[in-house]
């Protein structure tokens, strides 16, 4: 299972990477924003995307929309991890068709639960 994690914060990239490794996922590719993620998507063909929302160049919602319109990757499980915890935010993420949503700060157990949930939904 290859993960693509997208966040403009190097700290968050490391934290998410470590958390994923702790729950047994070692094959991880990183991207620093949505645009970078779209390039990495083509290069690495990941099985799962974990993305932040607020990023320069292309944010997580636009990235999700782009992936959903992609001929090959439109069904990729996408998990959003963000500081945004308002109703309108969740609505917007849902419109863009993220598979699940975590509000920072998060616990590793929550990440594991959400990843499993996304994978079950995608199966």
């Amino acid at each position: 299972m290859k993960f693509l994690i997208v966040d403009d914060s190097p700290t968050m990239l490391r934290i998410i990477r470590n958390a994923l490794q702790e729950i047994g996922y070692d094959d991880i590719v990183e991207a620093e924003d949505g645009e970078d993620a779209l390039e990495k998507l083509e290069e690495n063909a990941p099985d799962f995307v974990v993305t932040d929302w607020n990023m320069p160049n292309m944010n997580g919602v636009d990235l999700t929309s782009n992936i959903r319109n992609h001929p090959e990757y439109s069904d990729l499980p996408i998990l959003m991890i963000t500081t945004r915890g308002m109703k309108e935010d969740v609505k917007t993420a849902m419109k863009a068709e993220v598979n699940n949503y975590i509000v920072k700060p998060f616990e590793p157990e929550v990440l594991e639960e959400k990843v499993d949930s996304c994978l079950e939904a995608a199966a």
Partner: protein
Amino acid sequence: MSSRPQVQEFLDKLDELQAIFVLSRRFAPFLDELFDFVQDITVLLEEVNTTIRTRSGHMERATEHLKSVSEATEVATSEILDHSDEVLKDLRSIEDQLSTLEEQFAEEAKADNQVLALLREELGEGHEELLDEVARIQGRKQDLRDEWAAQLQETRDSLSPIRDRMNQIMMSLQVQDVTEQQLSSVNHLIETVRDRIDALLARLGTGQADRSEAPSGEPSRTAAFNMNAEYDRSDDKQRMADDVVAGDGGGAPTGRNSGGGTNGASSQSASSNGASSGASSSNGGGTAASQSDIDDMFDDGGGGSGGGDEGGEAASQEEIDELFQ
């Protein structure tokens, strides 16, 4: 004959001129005062201008300072993560060594048993006393190995909470991301005020400043921060969500959201720029989501009517989970 009207006209002009002189004499003191006032106000405006420019410079320094603080925390966080990685690596190494020792104990016990069996086989009867002594010694060795194995297990058990705490420290470093977004938000605010002052000064100086030059105060749609970011680890929202979920029974989301599982869902809604552009700007005055709001949204098929501006409660993780189930 024709010079008479001209003389009359000349006299009229003289009267008018005299009237103007009279008027001027009356207004002269007022004009003097007006002139003095303009001189005074000019000095005052120059002082205000200088003060504003100075303050604007202070703001620039403040934004630079905030940026350097942000960079410093990023570096420090990275260092902490490096150290945490090293500690976790060392812990894994110690655990591996413990496992190796345990395997060696098992091998040693096996070898001892083989030696005893071999001695019994080779020496046969008549050496029971010697064989019993060897068995007794090996029994003591096994006791020692069992004791060491117990100590190893204790050591292994004590490593587990250390690893958990190290992982917790790493997870706590999410505060850096939140702080970074808060600092970026403050910086954006300061820069907005500074830009407005600059626009005002330009208008005062040249009279040409365009109103459109003044920033709106809203972050751009590609802003890399959330103005409302906060580091909240309380489980209050979680408990509140539990209550709401228990009351609602949950909604059935559609589309790709976890639990919905219909991969063939159209992505038309996702492709509309309206959805993303509205989302992209940092929400200065967004409405906090309550569980019932979110449930309503999913009961509607996730489309959302765009309503619900009434003040609600912040959506907790559990509330959000409910949406995706």
